[in-house]
């Protein structure tokens, strides 16, 4: 299978085992796939099928896989620390359990995702705060901008997590169960935002989910079973 050169993500024979594991069944077993810019791909599979592991490898949050993993044309399979750091800055990661910083307000949790970028620091605090306000408005959370996570509902926290992930207009969005804590309407808003990003922002979106309600928004659905793509 040749590499598609305008692919955001190219994976060839990717295998991953947790350290110390000697089992014949690795977590990921010779996974190969390509995801292009502009695509919204949904990864499904039973618990333990390797979905989150694949997501963390794609986002540069984990190393130690064998095979080939290219993101934006860069081989990150054996990526060094600086390469992985650069990758993480280009990726918007939406965590399953939101992972907001408890000591920052909703707006500040989005801001912390922008301050990592040189160009935002150069533009200045006013622009950063303006961007945070814009995103909070988009996700219907303007009234909660000064609230800390402990004063927000699960769904609100997840929406903040989404806002943080998309704040810098990343070229790759990796979402791990983004709608799990959201009600039907909020879930629709969230997935529509991700769909709109894929279409107009020219980014690739990969969503891990068990939520059947959002499958229709995907360009493709990839099913993982026992670490392999079916």
């Amino acid at each position, binding site marked *: 299978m040749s590499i598609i050169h305008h692919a955001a993500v190219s994976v060839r024979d990717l295998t991953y085992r947790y350290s110390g594991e000697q089992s014949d069944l690795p977590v990921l077993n010779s996974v190969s796939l390509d995801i292009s810019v502009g695509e919204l791909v949904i990864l499904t599979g039973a618990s333990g099928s390797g979905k989150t592991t694949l997501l963390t490898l794609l986002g540069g949050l984990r190393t130690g896989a064998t095979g080939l993993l290219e993101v934006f044309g860069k081989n990150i399979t054996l990526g060094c620390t600086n390469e992985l750091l650069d990758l993480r800055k280009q990726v918007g990661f939406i965590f399953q359990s939101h*992972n907001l910083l408890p000591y920052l307000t909703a707006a500040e949790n989005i801001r912390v995702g922008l301050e990592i970028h040189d160009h935002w620091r150069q533009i200045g605090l006013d622009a950063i705060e303006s961007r945070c306000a814009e995103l909070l408005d988009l996700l219907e959370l303007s009234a909660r901008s000064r609230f800390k996570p402990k004063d927000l509902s699960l769904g609100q926290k997840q929406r903040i997590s989404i806002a943080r992930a998309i704040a810098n207009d990343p070229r790759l969005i990796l979402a791990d169960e983004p709608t799990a804590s959201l009600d039907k309407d909020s879930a629709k808003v969230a997935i529509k935002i991700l769909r709109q990003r894929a279409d107009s922002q020219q980014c690739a979106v990969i969503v891990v989910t068990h939520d059947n309600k959002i499958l229709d928004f995907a360009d493709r659905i990839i099913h993982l079973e026992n670490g392999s793509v079916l």
Partner: protein
Amino acid sequence: MPLSRRLPLAFRQLIDSPVKTAAAATGICFANVLVFFQLGLLNALYESQARPYSILNGEIFLVSSRFSRLSQTPSILINDVMRAQGLEGVDRVSGLSIALGTILLLPEGFTTNTQIYAFDPSNSAINARKANVSLSIINQYERASIDILSRPSTIKSIITALDSGKLYSTNLGIKQLTINSKAAIGSTFAADVSILMSQDNLLHYFPSRNSRLINIGVVKLKSGYSLSKVLSTLQDQLYPPGYHIKAMSLQEITKAEIVYWKKNTSLTFILGLGVIVGFVVSGIILYQILYSDVTSHLSEYATLLALGYSNAFVVRVVFAQAVMLTLASFPVAILFSLGLYAFMASATNLLVTMPFSRLVLVLLSTLFTSIFSCYLATSKLRRVDPSSLY
């Protein structure tokens, strides 16, 4: 965007959990107080040995060339000392005799070693104002002044008697002695109690002493004369190297006194060990606090790593917290230590001080220990894949 406008993550993390932060700061404060206590005790014990010199009525001191310490300084002839009287710049020369005896404490019924300072009240070697003593009272037969800076528990009954307007009758050796007044000299390792009396009284209680012998000559300079110049002249012309008497400044003699006690007792080793243990314990406390802090915030640090912040940045956040905690707890540690020093001084009459150099030393060492403990506590953070922290 300047650093000052970026999100102060370390500070926000600290104030978000005020109870936890207060507990951590208290731990660091305790570690600092421990070190301050050890250092204070060590220095107090030594500096107190030099306190009696501060009440002498002069700037230059003439002692035997075999001088090692105040309580056991060999005798010298008063005539030899008086030779300094004619030198330019010298106002007057006086002599101080020192002896060790035992006095009987009543109603306790036990004897205690007593350092005795004796001088001629008409040519006092003691600065009466500094020693807070009345020279006319000193001159009375079989009378002495008690040093109120002696060990408090030992002189309690004496002070009680004097405070209620009574005289305290005791024995010095086998002869009767009446303590009729107070003075402020400063006790040393040599004895728990010190008393002041006239030279005539000393010879009365120690008849075998030669009346021409004293222990220290005290030289008072005329105003306007340079100490170093007069000292130099004394050392060149009257008491050259090799002579059986040497001239020393106050700084030189107090330094010699302290050096003697440091070198010739095991106190330096024991108390120095205490200081080292204090530093080690403070390091362990700091490590435990910082390790616990890193562990409890691991998922937040993992999130920062996942967002693209470097391991170095995350470690800097922890370092910043450690420095903030150290700096915040330091003033409180100083206050507690000063209180402890005051208590120590009142209980022992030791000269317990808090020099600025000690503040700097403890602050710098705590910062260093804090940063080193931080380095150890963040070893995992420096190497880890963020996903493995979930």
